[in-house]
């Protein structure tokens, strides 16, 4: 079947197209060139006055894995306020802060998103992460495997194993967990908390291994680069949420010595200690460092006011944050000498000085970083806010007068501590398309996604241009996933199953000999039972794997 999308204004940064009126042809799930000679269009959509972008990609969203399910179980009262009934074509579930898997897929699609990436896949919990993501309809998905507090890596670093050995272990772990990237959370700190350390700075040693976060970051970032993984090491740094942590973040940027690094939810790592409340914005300094260091990419982790729940691998910082739990109930877990997690409900309030300034810090960061190809739109769902708040966030970025109206309502002391009112920048549609589409696809290394030129999969979102950007981005006219129309007027009309994106870096199989002995001696599972097989993703007939090339591969 040949589909034509006619006359829309196309925003396709991947091809350098910025609002030109252009027709798009779809056949067999992909975008194709206009056929030559005589041809018959089977289905045409008149998109005059509409805005056309590729499907949006959320490059950091907690949509699969144990901590998310703990968050769900912890908050029945939150679900009760947002029940989602079944329809003839959709399943029932719940929404708000941590929606059920089916509702996650529907609501993302209804906002024009067609892919989401879980940033904290613990190797030992990767099966659960993939099983949950397998129950998210419509979206493509993938995960970054979490390393850096795992005993095996830490003992390798203690023993000063060479980089090649680390690379082999990283590659093995990525394949065992079916990942497309590598994440590190509070490097070495999750482990340190199990030894009763309550904080860990960039150059502070883990008391058992004698290894510092700086060493862990360097070895993992080097491994990612040398293995040819497109997505840079994805870093949730030290000292999350601690006033003054902007210096840790700036030191981290210097420490990495030019290696590619993605600093995630940087808003939570951009705090100074100035002012009467000893809490201030470090956004300007951080943005300047990002602008200067082209090897650095960031996503923001914007907070927005209201109830949510924070779910993180960072058991050390989440334990410290439990004092702010609202409602007052929280969970931490130490996990398998591999990782950990912490789940703490939060209610961000605009009349709370710290929360109000966090809000402003995130927006300052968005507006002060020059290059939209190196910054990504996230709330670190659900940690800063549920993903359903993205259209509101887009309006804050694109509409200065709206932004300043909201700014005038937050805690007055916070208003005094931010430069936000003086920042004139408004994001353009093209910049939004870069952050949420082309840039994200490029950063993750997704082949044939995030663009609208021929050869791409037909993941396409069509909006009605509207000066109220929140209304515009809340309710796309059409969303196509792999060429199938899944959303009309902001409602799911058809469901399908997306693919799971992975990379398959090579490793020296001899590392498995050591690992097998190690598993038998210390762990609770046989190595053979630890590795996730391809079958586990595909055997239900719905899932599929899409393997993306490594840097240096011949396409």
């Amino acid at each position, binding site marked *: 079947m040949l589909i034509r999308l006619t006359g829309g204004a196309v925003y396709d940064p991947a091809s350098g197209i910025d609002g030109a009126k252009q027709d798009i042809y779809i056949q067999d799930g992909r975008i194709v060139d206009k056929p030559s000679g005589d041809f018959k269009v089977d289905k045409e959509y008149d998109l005059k006055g509409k805005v056309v972008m590729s499907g949006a990609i959320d490059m950091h969203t907690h949509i699969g894995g*144990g901590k998310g*399910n703990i968050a*769900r*179980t*912890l*908050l*029945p009262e939150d*679900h*009760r306020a947002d*029940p*989602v*009934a*079944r329809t003839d074509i959709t*399943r*029932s*579930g*719940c929404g708000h802060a941590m*929606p*059920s*898997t*089916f509702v996650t897929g529907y609501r993302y699609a209804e906002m024009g998103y067609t892919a989401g990436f879980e940033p904290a896949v*613990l190797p*030992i*919990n990767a*099966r*659960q992460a993939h*099983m*949950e993501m397998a*129950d998210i309809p419509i979206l493509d998905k993938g995960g970054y495997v979490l390393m850096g507090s795992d*005993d095996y890596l830490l003992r390798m670093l203690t023993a000063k194993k060479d980089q090649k050995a680390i690379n082999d272990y990283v590659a093995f772990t990525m394949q065992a967990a079916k990942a497309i990237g590598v994440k590190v959370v509070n490097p070495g700190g999750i482990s340190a*908390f*199990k*030894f*009763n350390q309550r904080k860990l700075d960039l150059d502070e040693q883990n008391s*058992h291994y004698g290894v510092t976060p700086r060493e862990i970051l360097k070895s993992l970032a080097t491994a990612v680069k040398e293995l040819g993984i497109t997505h840079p090491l994805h870093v949730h740094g030290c000292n999350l949420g601690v006033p003054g942590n902007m210096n840790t973040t700036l030191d981290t940027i210097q420490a990495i010595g030019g290696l590619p690094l993605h600093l995630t939810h940087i808003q939570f790592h951009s705090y100074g200690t100035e002012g009467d409340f000893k809490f201030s914005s470090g956004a300007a300094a951080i943005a300047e460092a990002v602008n200067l260091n082209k090897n650095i990419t960031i996503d923001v982790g914007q907070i927005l006011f209201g109830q949510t729940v924070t779910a993180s691998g960072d058991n050390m910082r989440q334990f410290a944050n439990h004092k702010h*739990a609202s409602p*007052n*109930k*929280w*969970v*931490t*877990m*130490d*996990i*398998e*000498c*591999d990782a950990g997690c912490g*789940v703490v409900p939060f209610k961000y309030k605009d009349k709370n000085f710290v929360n109000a300034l966090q809000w402003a810090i995130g927006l300052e960061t968005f507006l002060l970083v020059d290059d939209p190809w190196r910054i990504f739109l996230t709330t670190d769902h659900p940690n800063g806010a549920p993903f359903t708040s993205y259209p509101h966030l887009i309006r804050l970025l694109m509409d200065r007068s709206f932004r300043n109206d909201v700014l005038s309502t937050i805690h007055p002391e916070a208003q005094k501590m931010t430069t936000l009112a003086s920042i004139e920048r408004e994001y353009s549609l093209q910049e939004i398309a870069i952050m949420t589409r082309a840039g994200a696809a490029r950063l993750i290394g997704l082949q044939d996604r995030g663009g609208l030129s021929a050869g791409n999969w037909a993941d396409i979102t069509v909006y009605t241009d509207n000066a109220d950007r929140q209304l515009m981005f809340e309710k796309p006219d059409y969303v196509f996933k792999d060429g199938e129309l899944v959303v009309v007027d902001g409602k799911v009309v058809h469901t399908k199953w997306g693919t799971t994106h992975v990379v398959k870096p090579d490793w020296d199989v001899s590392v498995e000999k050591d690992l097998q002995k190690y598993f038998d*001696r*210390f*762990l*609770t*599972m*046989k190595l*053979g*039972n630890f590795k996730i*097989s391809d*079958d*586990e993703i595909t*055997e239900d007939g719905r899932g599929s794997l899409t393997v993306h090339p490594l840097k240096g591969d011949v396409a």
Partner: protein
Amino acid sequence: MAEITEVPSPFCGIGTDDLTIQVDGVSLKVVKNGCAVNTPAFEQAITDTRPRVDGKDVSLDVAVAKAAALLKNTNQPVIGGCATDVNGMRALLALADRSGAVVDNMNFTGARNNFLALQDSGWMNTTLAEVKNRCDLLLVVGADLESFSPRFFERYLWNEESMFLADTGKREVIYLGKAPSGAASTSPNGQKALVFECANEDLPDVVAVLRALVKGNPIRVDSVGGIAVSDLQAIADKLLAASYSVVTWAAGALAYSQAELTVQTVSEMVKDINNRNTRSSGLPLGGKEGDQTANQVCGWTTGYPARTRFASGFPEYDPYLNDTNTLLANGEADALVWVQAFNAKAVPPTTNLPTIVVGRSGMTFAKEPDVFIPVGTPGIDHAGHAFRLDNVVAIRLKKLRDSGLPSTSDVLNAIEQACR
């Protein structure tokens, strides 16, 4: 005859995956690393292979059609048992969503003690590899750990090597409440567990006093539940002196009213210890026959644990009202679907309502159900996934033999399709 190694078990909850099983046709023999829980569960012979309607052998298609017909005009069917693998639960929840059923895991009344505590105040918990490598003091509250899980001590406490302990034999084990039924808790060095017994109904008082002592609060009595306060003080001191204590309990063993408060006291005590500058973690026991699996899959599918009703068209959780036995006793259900792929002895409650059983081959019934469909057991007859008691690790279950029995998900998906 084939021999399959590294077989994971869905029966014991602790995720043993080192069994060696001999397969001869459809008969299995555990030849290595069996135990009193796993060996009989694996070795149970297949008896029924054909579905029955009204006691008569029929084809699977006929049984599925009959089940769908029975469900067609119901207002509130109950799907009880919920003892199967991840794919089985996925299909079960799809059927419940379509038919407006109540979903209720058979062990939920026990697990409720944990969920109510979790949903009120939370906890700090750990997993089995942390226990194996880090735990220097194990406090067992109100449970007979070795009858729950015969190989727990061998695998996770008396392991020869550990990452962080020089001599695992020097770990301390303390029982509070119940005494151990055997000697598994005695260390290889011969050091016996300390045991402080009390009646089950005194456990709330005993743990409350222990928590108060951990916090340094004064206690004005000399004994509680027959246990000297000085003994509890000694336990509190050990908990505060340990580097990484683990406190374990079995929610189902706390069989008294409002036992969730005991779980909450224990869990809050663990938090208190962590606030007094050392580490401690909880470890709730469970995970047998798919109970953790049911709650996990229901959790991500609905937001709620597996005692959830779909009659309104969307999931509604109620840990009391959605109890199968309550619904049957009060006449609030109009059909029963019983799903139990692991344990042939776990038969449905007897009822006069239309009853459909999707069960492990070998079930015998006091009253023949309207429909009985024998299914394969996950981890024996088909591959699958099950969650361990620590809720983090999903084990990959293997297919060991070709029995021709359908899986739970095959059957429930077929019934769901036929209900459309």
